[in-house]
């Protein structure tokens, strides 16, 4: 009998990178294969190729012994492959039922048979014990529920092979455990599973085999029985990793930023920050941990003047800042690495040089009155590019030509260029390569050592744990606890993130 999935010699090139370099892989029925690797290692690319979303340049993919046609998603689905995508592939304005049936709808003549769809989904949800309301509109559902819909969608066609692309990124530790249980059960019932992740303990908990990718190449295969987390980490990054960032004890000073009773509404006008009090001291890094979507984004945006404050105050050095514009907040002393760097942080088709002065272009020395001083802009850009190790042929290439990590370095460089008393970093290393992560972490620590008050908001608990002096846990729009990092315990914080009391 041939293997369920047989990938042979897949290569996929993008301009400037080889995302997959001659990768081969097999998955048998009833086993969980973890595909492990750093961001940008080529995991998603490989499985998008398997699922027919992209066309590899060469190689062969067989499902149950028969090759697939590259790029034919519908064909792959009909062969019993389901995929749960990293970014939910759900239409927000449509119902659960419409989302699940999309692409293979039950019909009556040319019309959709809505009754049949409804019944089918109830049966499906009962079969896997994943309860959903077929008529609910996706955008009204909480994230965990959306993920459930996503999984049901993948399971609908009696799948033989289920691909899960970083399914745990937005879940609490408890929801993760639940999901891992579902995965195990599916495998026991004979489904072959590929799990993409970069979280080592998940791999250890659920995988039968582990395949590690690095820089687009397959660098090793092992199993949880043969190795431990440290061993996996070493395979993943190719050298023994320092899991702990080197940093000295914080020299905590006076309170610089004070937040009192802050309430903020999200884009859907729902109250998502429900009264937050927080003080940030000079010379410390305060990490805000929490599962995404618990109000962190709105919290940061309200402090930084990007979102209206419903109630409460923000004080900088004891002076209340009005509900103001991001640039005014910047002038009041807060620098901010925005979460969405492509949208707010950069102008993609501007040069790196222009991006580096985006918030100072009309000030000396970059402008003399009405006229810009381009020589000064260029000079400063060239030295910044060198200082921040921004990998580019020239400071005059466009920002869009940079990799994610180097783009982020441009933003970080700009925000740190003025040595402001407060630095707010929102998800500073998302989508950033390992080398750049290390660099950015060191920049945050050196800003702290120079006396800045740093507020770090991240969905990566490991990042929070390794950088923060104090950790605030945010859940359901509130700060549920603030702990000194030396007292922090991963499980304890996990439970707090999930909104559990102790």
């Amino acid at each position: 009998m041939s293997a369920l999935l047989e990938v042979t010699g897949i290569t996929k090139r993008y301009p400037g990178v080889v995302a997959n370099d001659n990768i081969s892989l097999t998955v048998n029925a009833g086993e969980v294969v973890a595909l492990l690797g750093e961001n940008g290692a080529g995991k998603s690319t490989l499985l998008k190729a398997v699922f027919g979303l992209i066309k590899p340049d060469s190689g062969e993919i067989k499902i149950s012994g028969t090759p697939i046609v590259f790029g034919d998603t519908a064909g792959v689905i009909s062969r019993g492959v389901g995929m749960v995508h990293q970014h939910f592939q759900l239409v927000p304005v449509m119902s659960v039922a419409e989302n699940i049936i999309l692409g293979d709808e039950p019909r009556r003549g040319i019309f959709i048979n809505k009754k049949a769809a409804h019944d089918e989904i109830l049966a499906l949800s009962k079969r896997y014990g994943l309860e959903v309301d077929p008529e609910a509109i996706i955008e009204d559902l909480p994230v965990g529920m959306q993920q459930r819909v996503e999984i049901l969608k993948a399971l609908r066609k009696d799948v033989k092979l289920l691909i899960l692309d970083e399914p745990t990124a937005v879940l609490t530790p408890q929801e993760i455990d639940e999901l891992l249980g579902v995965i195990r059960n599916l495998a026991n019932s004979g489904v072959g599973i590929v799990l993409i992740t970069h979280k080592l303990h998940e791999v250890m908990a659920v995988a039968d085999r582990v395949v590690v990718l690095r820089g687009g190449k397959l660098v090793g295969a092992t199993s949880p029985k043969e190795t431990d987390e440290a061993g996996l980490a070493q395979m993943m990054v190719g050298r023994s990793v320092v899991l702990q960032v080197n940093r000295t004890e914080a020299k905590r000073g006076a309170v610089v930023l004070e937040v009192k009773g802050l309430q903020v509404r999200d884009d859907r006008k729902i109250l998502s920050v429900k009264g937050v009090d927080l003080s940030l001291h000079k010379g410390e890094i305060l990490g805000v941990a929490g599962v995404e979507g618990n109000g962190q984004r709105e919290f940061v945006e309200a402090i930084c003047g990007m979102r209206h404050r419903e109630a409460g105050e923000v004080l900088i050095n004891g002076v209340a800042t009005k509900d103001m514009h991001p640039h005014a907040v910047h002038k009041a002393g807060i620098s901010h690495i925005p979460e969405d760097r492509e949208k707010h942080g950069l102008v993609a088709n501007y040069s790196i040089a222009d991006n580096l002065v985006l918030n100072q272009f009309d000030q000396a020395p970059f402008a003399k009155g009405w006229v810009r001083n381009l020589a000064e802009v260029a000079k400063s850009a060239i030295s910044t590019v060198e200082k921040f190790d921004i990998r580019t042929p020239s400071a005059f290439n466009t920002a869009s030509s940079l990799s994610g990590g180097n783009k982020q370095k441009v933003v970080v460089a700009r925000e740190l260029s003025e040595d402001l008393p407060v630095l707010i970093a929102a998800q500073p290393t998302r989508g950033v390569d390992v080398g750049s992560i290390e660099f950015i972490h060191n920049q945050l620590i050196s800003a702290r050592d120079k006396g800045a008050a740093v507020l770090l908001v991240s969905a990566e608990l490991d990042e929070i744990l390794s950088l923060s002096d104090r950790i605030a846990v945010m859940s359901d729009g509130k700060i549920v606890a603030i702990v000194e990092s030396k007292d922090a315990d991963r499980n304890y914080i996990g439970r707090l993130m999930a909104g559990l009391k102790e």
Partner: protein
Amino acid sequence: MKTFSKRNGYFLSAILATAFFYFNGSDVTTSVYATGTVFALPLALAAMVGIMCERTGIVNIGIEGTMLLSAFVAFFVSSLTQNIIIGLIAAIFTGSMMGLILAVMAVSWRMDQIIAGTIINILATGLTSFLYVQGRTIPGVFQSFEIPVLSKIPFFGPVLFIHGALTFLGIAIILALYVAIYHTTWGLRSRAVGEHPSSADTAGVSVVRLRYINVTIAGAVGALAGAYLSLELVGSFERGFTAGKGFTALALMIFGRWNPLGALAAAMFFGLAQAYANQLMIDQIVNIPSQFTAVLPYIMTIVVLTISAGKVRAPAAEGQPYEKGQA
């Protein structure tokens, strides 16, 4: 929420109707409504073009050009062959081709869709003014006929059931489109592609193919709107014949919240307002300079957009080129 705009349109039409019953006899009201329907139809059909395209995420501001060139081809071919059916077929072919060109630019070349539509418009203007020949005639127009029984219903009969063949065809298309968008596989998939293309893609729906199909068929519908003008309503063709109807239609589409019936209601409101203004002039109740009645629909378009801006939600993926695998 979904029916808000429909209600708006019906409500405003109802007010106009009541006002008319009040000031005139029912005969005049019926005739104003019949005229209003005639004015509304090309606008409503053109709005369907916009809806079909935008529901799959393609902005089509080339409706004006599609209508103009199709109206020209309809007239010119009818004149050459002395057969308006052949003219109509040629127009529909032309419209489909223009839709296809837009699809190539917007879907395959991933061009800015507003500029792509503008190219369609300028191309149509250029071709029609270059190829236009004065003094041509066609053998006749699609004549009005009565649908038996239905046309005898008071008020609704004359308003809805005494028209030319293209009007009936147009009304049928609008109703069919409404049903299709909300109740068929095609409609579900189109809406998914317009809202969140990668969801559709990962569910095995080809975003590119659906966009091509919809934009091309929409072109054919736009051709029908154009052919209606030259082969049924007016029976001739002039340079700049469509007079901005394709742009007004976009406003109606937005006002109607991308819902065919909503857009139809909005178009009825526009048609009636114009018919009403005409009637006022004929009755010599008011004396407005003709230049001002002529600009009325344009002013109404801006007003309508200003009112609905920020209150309506466009298909989320509108105007954005899609690249497979970029989920």
